[in-house]
C-alpha cells in the first residue's frame, strides 16, 4: 500500500544549527502538507505545496516539493528552542476518499 516515510526519526541539534527533514512517498502526490506538533500539543498546519519543484519560505523555514512530486523537505535555518517538536508531512491517499496519509514524523530537539 501507499507509504509516506520521513527521515530522520529524531534529530538533536544545538541552538543555531540548521535542521532538515525529508519526506518520501511511494506514489506521486498531488500536493503535500507539513504540520508541526509541539510536545503535548496537537498538529498545526504549516504549509501546503502543490507544484512540481515548488519552494516556499516562512521566515527561517524552507519547504521544497520534488520535481517528481514524490518527495519533499523542510529545512530550518539557525534553529531556536521554539522549533522543538515533531514535524509531519502528509499527502493524499492514492486510493481516493480525499484522505491524507501522514508520515511518522521527525522529532526535533534543540539544545540551548
Amino acid at each position, binding site marked *: 500500500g501507499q507509504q509516506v516515510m520521513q527521515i530522520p526519526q529524531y534529530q538533536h541539534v544545538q541552538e543555531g544549527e540548521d535542521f532538515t527533514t525529508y519526506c518520501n512517498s511511494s506514489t506521486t502526490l*498531488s500536493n503535500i502538507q507539513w504540520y508541526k506538533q509541539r510536545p503535548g500539543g*496537537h*498538529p498545526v498546519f504549516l504549509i*501546503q505545496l502543490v507544484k512540481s519543484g515548488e519552494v516556499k519560505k516562512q521566515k527561517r523555514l524552507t519547504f521544497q516539493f520534488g520535481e517528481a512530486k514524490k518527495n519533499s523537505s523542510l529545512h530550518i535555518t539557525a534553529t531556536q528552542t521554539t522549533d522543538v517538536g515533531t514535524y509531519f508531512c502528509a499527502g*493524499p491517499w492514492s486510493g481516493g476518499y*480525499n*484522505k*491524507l496519509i501522514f508520515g*511518522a514524523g521527525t522529532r526535533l530537539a534543540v539544545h540551548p
Partner: protein
Amino acid sequence: EAGVVQSPRYKIIEKKQPVAFWCNPISGHNTLYWYLQNLGQGPELLIRYENEEAVDDSQLPKDRFSAERLKGVDSTLKIQPAELGDSAVYLCASSPGTSVHGELFFGEGSRLTVL
C-alpha cells in the same frame, strides 16, 4: 474564532469498560475527521464525515468502535469495550471543504489510557 473543541482531554479506564469522546468542529466546517495517534507515530484516519454522512470509515474497527455526527455538527466517537491496545490520543480535526487540498484544523486531542 474558536478552534476545534474536544473532551475529555484525558481519560483513564479499566479494560472492557466503554468510553466516549466528543468533538465540536470549527463553525461552518462541513468535514470532520477522527484520527488515532499512537505514541511516536503520525495521525491515522479512523473516520471522515462530510456533514452527517460517514464517507470513509474503512479504518474504523467496527467491532468495538462507533461514531456519529447526527446533525452534521458535533461528533462522538465511542469504544466499547476498550482494550489495552486502544491507549492512544484520539484527535478530531475539521476542514471547511471536502478536498485534501486544504488545511486540517486539529483539536487538542483526548488521551486515553486503558489499564
